[in-house]
């Protein structure tokens, strides 16, 4: 694993943007880094919506939000000094199984990423019980890589 081969897992949240900001500040002056912005796409729960149209509308909104986020994240990295040609974007579809965390780890292993960066929501114990925590699972299960968890 090459620690300069960096995977930043993002959604379109403020936590993810903090992770990008942090990574940009560290990586901007560094030489020979390669940064991949990874978005794990999961369709909104269809049961929540009254009609197919409403659901598709939400899918479209989510898609646009992520597209804007990835554009912004790339700009942050480039502005910090990471060459534009060294920034990559990847979107992976994730169904109910495996979890988002496992999907991230699969991508990390397949791509030989030596550094994994992720934002953290700062869940309470109760929230972690009910909703699960991606960052906690990454810290527990990541192998052969450094994990940067940005709060």
């Amino acid at each position, binding site marked *: 694993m090459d620690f300069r081969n960096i995977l930043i897992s993002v959604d379109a949240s403020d936590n993810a943007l903090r992770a990008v900001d942090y990574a940009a500040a560290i990586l901007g002056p560094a030489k020979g880094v390669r940064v991949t912005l990874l978005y794990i796409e*999961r369709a909104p729960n*269809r049961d*929540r919506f009254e009609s197919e149209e409403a659901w598709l509308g939400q899918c479209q909104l989510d898609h646009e939000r992520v597209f804007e986020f990835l554009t912004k994240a790339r700009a942050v990295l480039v502005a910090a000094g990471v060459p534009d040609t060294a920034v990559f974007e990847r979107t992976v579809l994730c169904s109910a199984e495996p979890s988002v965390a496992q999907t991230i780890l699969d991508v990390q292993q397949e791509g030989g990423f030596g550094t994994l960066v992720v934002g953290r929501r700062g869940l309470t*114990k*109760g929230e972690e019980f*009910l909703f699960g925590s991606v960052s906690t699972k990454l810290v527990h299960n990541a192998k052969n890589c450094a994990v940067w968890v940005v709060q």
Partner: protein
Amino acid sequence: MPESVRALVERYKPPVTVGSFGAVFTDTSQFMDIGYGDVIAVGQSHYLVMGDERERRFGMEDPKFWVKRCIELESGAYRILKLEFQETFDQHIGPLTITCHRSAVKEARILRLVTGDPRFMQGQTYKDDHGNLVRVLERVAGRRLDLNIEDIHAEHREYFHEIFPGILTRFIAACRAIHHLHQHGETHGDIRRDHLYVDFKTGDYCWIDFDYGYDSVENPFGLDLFGLGNILSFISGKGVHAIQDVDAEAHGITEADCALFFRHRVVNLRKLFPYVPEELNRVLMHYSSQSEVYYETVPELLDDLEPCLDTLRRA
């Protein structure tokens, strides 16, 4: 009301007075307008509405206007009709707020999945003239588990040694039923002790009401596991033991011995009842405020819970 339907009502009306012949509804969109004496016609059957179902909890009654108590006129059988009512709402669990949704599509899907499976309520789904999903449910011939347990007149020690092993055996089977849903990508969504019924004939447990859903990406079964833990705590303790109702000082009970979400509920039952086996208490403590490890799947829970049954049987 057309003469043909009126004749059906006359022929099959239940042994109660039907004071008025209402309207026949083939479109259930305006379910608030459907009431006593009306007839809902779906799936080539007619259902005489006797009233709205009510949710009875904590001594309160809440009318559920989208759930109708009915008589199927062609068969005379009692049926519950759940009409389509899509909503999103906040559910409060202790200090947490969870956004949930009520989905007819979800319940219809699960009804199909569990057809013929006595561990779940049974029913069929039909579309009305407007495309609304109407779930026609059979009444579960049983009684709520929590009411059964509350009616057991025995001291906890006697209950725990004599009765509880049988209850736990059936509860484990009910957990496996929930796992069956999870294996098919479904959740129950609203696991509560008043949603688990005891079959009058077999004594087996039967889950009802699975139209709730929630979004939990990383831990999709978390809320179901939480519900199972609450029921386990209830059946193990023969009720809820609030910290203010026990001699906390004498038993050395602190907040760390209470539930993660309900800080007044004692889950460290071994401090109240020292004969509760350590294995079972460890399972219960996964739901305490001091726990750092949580169950994410039913097999994880059962891996710990099933050996408790052996311990109890040996005791």
